């Protein structure tokens, strides 16, 4: 087989950068929710500042993709791979924004705010992080089944979101939670629900890169 060593190295490096970008946004989701729960303003600010690094990843990967298109004029699986990467970085960047949005909730709240724990929000976060991780793993390993499992997992996120809504509504009725806090809680849950949707988008592009069909 003829070697396209340089080109293959560029594609491998593209995948590596995408995974690194994914790792960063997964960390930001964790830290964003942590800053909200603990009302940790310093951590919240760190996440907001660090989101710029996510944006830089997006620009750098986009630039690399355009460079490869220009130099290599890719076709078939190479073209699908680069198209998928270009689409996936947009979703990862949006996930990064939502992680920063969650952190911003910590900044809006009063220091004296009473913490009210809703376990399902943590459940949503765990499932979302796993979805992103699996979507990227499925891309690197060309694992169609794993990519499809990410799409299915979104039902769990949606289910937990519905449960959270009911939980918070009940807590409001019983005056167990402050109204302002309940609004912030619901916003955090909504951001997580959107993160799940973006993870699904990523998985769909993984499937496209393998099959040529965008589901």
């Amino acid at each position, binding site marked *: *087989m*003829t*070697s*396209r060593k340089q*080109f293959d190295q560029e594609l491998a490096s593209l995948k590596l950068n995408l995974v690194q970008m994914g790792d960063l946004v997964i960390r930001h989701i964790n830290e964003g929710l942590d800053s909200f729960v603990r009302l940790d303003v310093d951590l919240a600010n760190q996440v907001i500042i660090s989101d710029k690094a996510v944006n830089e990843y997006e620009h750098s990967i986009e630039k690399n993709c355009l460079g490869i298109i220009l130099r290599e*004029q*890719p*076709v*078939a*699986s*190479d*073209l*699908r791979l680069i198209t998928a990467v270009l689409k996936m970085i947009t979703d990862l960047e949006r996930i990064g924004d939502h992680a920063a949005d969650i952190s911003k909730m910590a900044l809006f709240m009063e220091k004296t705010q009473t913490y009210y724990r809703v376990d399902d929000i943590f459940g949503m976060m765990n499932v979302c992080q796993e979805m992103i991780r699996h979507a990227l793993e499925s891309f690197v390993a060309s694992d169609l089944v794993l990519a499809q499992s990410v799409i299915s997992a979104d039902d769990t996120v949606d289910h937990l979101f519905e449960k959270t809504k009911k939980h918070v509504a009940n807590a409001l009725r019983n005056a167990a939670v402050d109204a302002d806090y309940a609004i912030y809680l619901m916003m955090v849950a909504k951001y997580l629900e959107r993160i799940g949707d973006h993870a699904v988008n990523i998985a769909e592009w993984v499937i496209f890169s393998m*099959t*040529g069909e965008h589901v």
Partner: protein
Amino acid sequence: MNTFDVRELVLTYDGKAALQHVSMNIIPKQVTALIGPSGCGKSSLLRCLNRMNDLIDGCNVEGEILFHGENIYAKNYNVYELRTKVGMVFQKPSPFPMSIFDNVAYGPRCQGINDKKTLENIVKKALVDAALYDEVKERLKESAMALSGGQQQRLSIARTIAMQPEVILMDEPTSALDPIATGKIEELIFDLKKHYTIVIVTHNMQQAARISDYTAFFLMGNLVEFNTTEQIFRQPTQAKTEEYITGRFG
């Protein structure tokens, strides 16, 4: 009805197989690109379509090529008539050492058309269709040898069109041209397919992707894959096709 139906075509040169049981169709008023590495048989197939291989010693053809349902390799098939309907443009432009006008009028004159007005009309229409008329209309009596490479190739196309063919076969028509002249020929092919069926052999993968509707990939005399060009370049079904078009093939 397909323009050509190639059925189980086996082509040998001195007993050595150049094409092995190739079956495919050429669809009317579409551009079909034949791609593959050197020696894969794509040019041999192209030459079979107007029986140019008849001129090669030791060449033997088995199977059938139907042109509108008629086997062109049948006994008593009128090859001369076939070649007027199925014209060919070669890799290197080959103007005759005569004027631009006479180059284009050569074929019609051979067919016995000598009326001045009729010839003028044929030549003008052929040059217009080949997107060359505006560039040469003031110097039709000048030698064709003075034209640039790209113009000479469009003149070759005009000469083919002047015979009012139905099919134009092109064997790497832009491989000797610069990118601007190549672009003009590609635009021309795009216009020509409104009226003609085109089969083109090209080594330029991007060109096949740009200008053709269907693509056939050949390897060592075998047709590996034949599909719409979009399908071939987006999601080929055969691993060999994928390897070749992505440049990972040896």
